[in-house]
């Protein structure tokens, strides 16, 4: 394993891990997202245009 190999590996993995951590932190920090259940009456009556 060369120094350049270490650099590519560490940078690639760090980038992905940081991106993942950033995304999940934002997703989980919103109160509406943890258990964001849709309304029970999710019935599409298609009557919006009438």
């Amino acid at each position, binding site marked *: 394993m060369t120094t350049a190999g270490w650099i590519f590996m560490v940078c690639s*993995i760090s980038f992905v891990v940081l*991106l993942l951590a950033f995304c999940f932190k934002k997703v989980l920090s919103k109160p509406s997202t*943890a258990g964001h259940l849709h309304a029970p009456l999710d019935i599409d009556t298609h009557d919006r*245009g009438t």
Partner: protein
Amino acid sequence: MTKPKEAWGSRIGIILAVAGSAVGLGNFLRFPGTAAGNGGGAFMIPYFCALLFLGIPICWAEWTMGKHGGQFGFNSCPAIFGLLGRNKVWRYLGVLGLIIPIVIYMYYVLIESWCVGYAFLYLTQGVELGSEPAQFAQKCKEFFNGFVGANQDGLMLDGKIHISVLVWVTVFSLNFILIYRGVSKGIERVCTLAMPMMAICAFIVLIRVLTLGTPDPAKPDLNVLNGLGFMWNPKPVDGGGSWVEALARPKVWMAAAGQIFFSLSVGFGVIINYASYLKRKDDVVLSGLTASATNEFFEVCLGGLITIPAAFVFLGIAGATATGTFDLGFKTLPIVFQYMGQPWGRIVGFAFFFMLFLAAITSSLSMLQPAIAFLEEALNIGRKASVALLGLVTGMGSLFVIYFSKDLKALFFLDSTIGDITIVILAAVQTVLFSWVFGVKRAVKIAHEGAEMHLPRFFPFVIKYVTPTYLLLMLGLWCYTDLGKYVNQIRTDNVIAATFGLVIVVTVFLLVLIAIGGRRWQAETKDFA
């Protein structure tokens, strides 16, 4: 139409479902081989460029188009394309968003069943390779060929009971039972369970691989660090020049773009369908980015550290350069597990193939839902009828692939037809529709409704100019290098010609259904205009 509308149960549910669709065999088997063969660590530069300028922008476009279509009660690609393009040509182009998942499912479910079969074998007895290391490679190849019937056409359907066919029937049925349960109770529930389990299995295998050290003291060079080096050290391509020169090769950039496409499941017609079950005020920007990041974690952080280093440690450069996804997974890694000894070989072997099965089933379920939604919409039929009809079509297609098993010719042809070119065509169609026909300003406005983060400022420019150019270059390069070979294959090989015929027949069938459903969709679109 007053039937209950399908919807996701939670935000995390759809993120894991999209990520589950994206994480598949390619993350663990295709990515490491492609990276190691295209510059090693240097490959990550074009790879991340393709992710940022191609993969994620198209992902956002698909999420946005799907959410917008869903507001009008549409869940299938043809209906959504027709809505966005306001022209029946776009509706018919939407057939690509159906043919891709349907055809992939026909052979993917077969590979999924091999993963289950191998996992079961490792749980019970292991793959028997004998005690003579010199014979391992030959025995492993013979075992795989016997298991999948690669020695002769029709071997798996000769009237005898074959374990691999039994497993295929089980896995095929399981997929349809789960998909019948619907978006929330079926897909979402499976993905919410399968994704963490997949991560656990991957970490078990990863820990074992990274703690292998130097298994054979007589061969000190074959150690984990050098295995990681084989994967991550930047190196020239095809043995010439430096690794910097590798970055000047179009082939490397195309390989990176192809890997991103295949890996993120963009251009599959799946994300559009999944996003169509969102509400108007649901976020798509952060959700899309999170699903992509989850896929990248499995690919770069797990896939990039497991397969190639493990193969290198026991088999050296020859083993680590195994060509193709199947060779690495089914012909090389069983030898690695054999070298690990007992009980680790069987434990890691089971964990690895079970992980592949979980990756595969979350993907195969996603391939069924777009077609089920389409059949419901086009024929105005219920879920039971659409599941039965799709089961019939995909079952016949899958049996076709099982019958023409010699050298897995039918399977490889379908894989190259869809994986190499059709997904790029669909992505190009989507990008033009999204940014040029529908209008990128309008699309960005829709994407921002309920968004928890804004699209980057460069997104409109990238999706309008950079992404289509990149895609057209990919198409042009494929036509220049592969089109002739592709046509020649169809003209000279009867099995390939029959397989191509299968794709054409399914496409025509779907086009007829689009024509049937089109009139009603057009009326509904006008109502909501």
